[in-house]
């Protein structure tokens, strides 16, 4: 038959050779895949079939300094859609039920699409009760739509704390790119305030439950009955320096106004109250905001999202006089015997600078008491421009306080050089007279003022102002672990502070500018300020601390566009101080009032 040869080999042999060589090749390949590289393929097969489902941990809770819960977690409903089972003609109906703009569902589905249509996509969190009950009633006619319970923030203390607590929102694509080791699309991340600054402590650790999935990623059962599951670890609870009572008073008093109020423990820098007005309702805002509310907030000309405490620099007005008094005393350019006679005004550089009244002869203490402008016009020339700038900076102005939350403005403290730049070497020195009373180019933020008054109260020593004191461990001991903050010591003697503080005491308790805000139960020391505002009414300021001889609380209040500091800011500070120092007394009073009311009611009922 086939005996003829091909290249001197028989064709038969070539055929045998081709067949056997092919089988050898396949055999070696199978040995390589199934025996040598088996474990690598095995791992790939396991990864294919097993899917880890993230278990989002509970976020840490916020406590105030007395361990009252400020922010916690409450269950809320989230609507999800599984694209493979969902009929997009339901979009219009669902958009009405969920109170979202038309096209919202398509946008979310497109934005979160994956290669599997069996993975549910979160449409909206925190839907309201009405929508939940409608969805549950109509579940049969809504294929692919389901409700799951997820946690959202609750605010049980009745404190708004909008700028302080902050909120979480779904992570942005830009941030996700940077943080993709931990976060996945759709994850929540602290976006402002404490929620943002302490995100890594609050978020805890994600857990995983493992399920078997088929090639379309559809779940078909637990993996090893949950033996490999890793539970999520709750985030750490934070303890804030906030005092709920003081915070509540601050928020009530600021309501309807534009401004800030900050209370601080002078010795430690712990913030007792932190309020910026106008604010917004975090409860209505968190995770899912009705489009009306969001629009209202965004278009409000008063900018409720704006954190005035950290970021709204204003001229400090007469509150700056204390700093100047201390600077002059510390430099030795004046002492308590140094007298200036106020005649209701004085001319500097050809310009007349007036005073609020004709104060006559005053020393530094009474100049503070009466907030005499003429005294401080003269004083700044004695201090000199460069020293004035240096002392302002020593008290923390013109630079970041490094408060633990939020973005911050450094404010502005002018220097001689900055004026030289504008006006040349012979810049008009009359400018300094304005600076002497805290007007002109000088700008400070409320948080800087709070730090300033803490320094005054505690004789030049305090700590970086901070909202959060520390955190609690997650184990059963719930040990408190404090955060450490930087000490600030401006290195000026107690004696000098005591002179300034005497003046501040008289402001409230003598014949001073804030005598109307004298408290019957606690000795408050303070200083009013009224900052001229070229755009409208003056800004009212007050800084103060109490008790005057052993300060436990220091307060800074700014109310914008209202008028005198004594009229508008000092009463608020007084209420905040009383809320803190007279806590027990006020509580008792409250109870008594309740009793009286109920007695009267009983009486009324009986009389009837």
């Amino acid at each position, binding site marked *: *038959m*086939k005996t*003829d040869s*091909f*290249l001197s080999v028989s*064709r*038969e042999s*070539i*055929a*045998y050779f081709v*067949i*056997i060589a*092919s*089988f050898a*090749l*396949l*055999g070696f*390949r*199978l*040995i390589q*895949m*199934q*025996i040598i*590289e*088996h474990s*690598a*393929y*095995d791992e*790939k*097969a*396991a990864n*294919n*079939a097993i899917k880890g489902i993230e278990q989002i941990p509970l976020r840490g809770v916020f406590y105030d300094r007395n361990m009252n819960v400020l922010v916690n977690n409450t269950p809320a409903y989230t609507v999800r859609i599984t694209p493979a089972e969902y009929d997009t003609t339901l979009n219009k109906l669902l958009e009405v039920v969920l109170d979202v703009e038309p096209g919202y569902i398509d946008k979310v589905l497109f934005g979160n699409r994956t*290669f599997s249509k069996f993975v549910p996509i979160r449409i909206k969190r925190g839907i309201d009760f009405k929508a939940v009950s409608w969805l549950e009633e109509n579940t049969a006619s809504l294929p692919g739509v389901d409700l799951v319970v997820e946690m959202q923030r609750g605010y049980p203390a009745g404190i708004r704390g909008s700028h302080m607590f902050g909120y979480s929102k779904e992570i942005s694509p830009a941030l996700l790119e940077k943080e993709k080791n931990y976060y996945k699309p759709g994850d929540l991340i602290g976006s402002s305030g404490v929620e943002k600054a302490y995100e890594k402590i609050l978020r805890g650790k994600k857990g995983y439950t493992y399920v*078997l*999935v*088929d*090639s*379309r990623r559809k779940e*078909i059962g637990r993996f090893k009955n949950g033996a490999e599951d890793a539970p999520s670890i709750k985030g750490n609870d934070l303890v804030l320096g906030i005092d709920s009572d003081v915070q509540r008073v601050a928020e009530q008093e600021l309501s309807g106004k534009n401004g800030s109020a900050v209370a601080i423990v002078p010795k430690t820098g712990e913030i007792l109250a932190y309020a910026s007005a106008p604010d917004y309702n975090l409860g209505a805002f968190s995770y899912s905001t009705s489009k009306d509310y969001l629009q209202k907030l965004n278009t409000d000309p008063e900018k409720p999202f704006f954190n005035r405490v950290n970021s709204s620099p204003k001229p400090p007005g007469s509150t700056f006089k204390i700093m100047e008094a201390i600077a002059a005393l510390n430099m030795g350019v004046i002492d308590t015997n140094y007298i200036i006679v106020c005649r209701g005004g004085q001319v500097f550089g050809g310009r007349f600078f007036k005073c609020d009244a004709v104060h006559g002869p005053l020393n530094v203490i009474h100049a503070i008491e009466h907030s005499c402008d003429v005294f401080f016009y003269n004083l700044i020339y004695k201090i000199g421009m460069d020293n004035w700038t240096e002392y302002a900076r020593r008290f923390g102005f013109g630079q970041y306080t490094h408060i633990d939350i939020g973005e911050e403005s450094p404010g502005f403290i002018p220097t001689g050089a900055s004026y030289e730049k504008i006006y040349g070497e012979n810049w008009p020195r009359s400018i300094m007279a304005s600076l002497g009373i805290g007007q002109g180019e000088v700008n400070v933020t409320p948080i800087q003022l709070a730090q300033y008054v803490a320094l005054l109260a505690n004789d030049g020593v305090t700590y970086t102002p901070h909202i959060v004191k520390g955190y609690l461990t997650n184990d059963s001991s719930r040990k408190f672990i404090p955060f450490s903050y930087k000490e600030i010591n401006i290195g000026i003697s107690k004696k000098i502070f005591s002179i300034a503080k005497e003046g501040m005491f008289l402001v409230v308790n003598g014949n001073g500018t804030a005598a109307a805000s004298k408290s019957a139960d606690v000795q408050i020391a303070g200083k009013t300020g009224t900052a001229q505002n070229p755009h409208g009414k003056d800004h009212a300021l007050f800084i103060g601390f109490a008790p005057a001889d052993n300060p436990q609380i220091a307060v800074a209040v700014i109310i914008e566009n209202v008028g005198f500091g004594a009229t508008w800011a000092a009463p608020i500070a007084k209420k905040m101080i009383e809320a803190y120092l007279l806590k027990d007394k006020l509580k008792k009073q409250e109870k008594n009032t309740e009793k009286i009311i109920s007695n009267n009611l009983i009486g009324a009922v009986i009389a009837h």
Partner: protein
Amino acid sequence: MRIDYKLNDKFDMGLVIPAFLLFCIGLAAIYSSTLHNPHATGNFNKQLLFGIASVILFFVTYSLPTNIFRTLAVPSYIFSLLLLMVVLIIGRRVSGAKAWLGMAGFGFQPSELAKLGTVMILAAFLSRKNSAIDSFKDILIAVLLGFIPIILVLAEPDLGSSFVFIALIIVMLFWKGISLFGLFVVLSPAILAVSSLFGIYYFISGLVLVIISLFIFRKDIFFSASIFAINLAVGFFTSYMLMALRQHQQTRIRSFINPSADPLGAGYNAIQAKVAIGSGGLWGKGFLAGSQTQLQFIPEQWTDFIYCVIGEEFGFFGTIITLGLFLYLFIRVLKLACTAKNEFLSLTLIGILSIYFIHFIVNVGMVVGIMPVIGIPLPFVSYGGSSLIVSMLMLGIAANVYRTRKNYT
């Protein structure tokens, strides 16, 4: 002559037993891979039915007088070409290719039958009395006979089957005794066609090799030039065909060149197939216990990717036994081809062997990742009536040749 009454004398167990065992392994794998697929749960029963039908056809073929095959060569070739044309007009389109004829609820792929038809016409043509294998004319006619069905299956388009045709033409010419130069003339366009798929540089290198070879053979200049022209034309034709191919076939070819480039797209099947086989290990994960198979990571695993099921659930043990059965069967057919009593039968058997072998090597090579993903079934094992019936029909011819091997004609 003493008549040997032993069964083995008339009935070649060496052909039938491997085929039967392969069919059984295939049944188990089909059962396993379709168990959780609601669209394919009937496939096990259907395959059993095809099995019975093909056994009947096997015995019919086995019992026919051996001489009839030569008589049937021309009619079966023309009949299968007619079917290939009919399928282009009224065929059913399944996953992109218009390759199926509907018949009483079952689909049939004429291309499977056409492979056998082409083998028979080539065997008849090459074994005619005055054939001269080294004449240019004979080679040209043989290649043309094979090219008609290639054009028709490419029009479906069925890339896998066209490879089978190319392979069987070359194998049969080789078996007939083509010279090295003749083989070069036939083979070089095929190699150039494949190399052009890989890109322009491969194509140009192929052309350079052709020129060098032409110098070595030292044929006259006119002849060499025309061979070079044919090569060039084939290369351009292939690139043109590639562009005319459906998107999924183009990407399959590209994904073979770089499978990880698109792991969720065209390379997906290739990667998942390797994972299935590799994760099976030495002894496999056990029947019905392969995660890749049971969780359906490979689409339609019961057809072209059936070897993955064996590899995953029965491990190296299963894959090597399957290889062994094929090897035994192929050697058996090859031996039969060597000892067949006339040239027509020898060529037919070698053609049949080449059909089996090219299906086997492309299919297994594909799932172990040394060949591109080309949709082509594994004979006797894959689910599918057309493939099984034609495979058994061809086995019937081989068994027939064995039955009458001692008869004189």
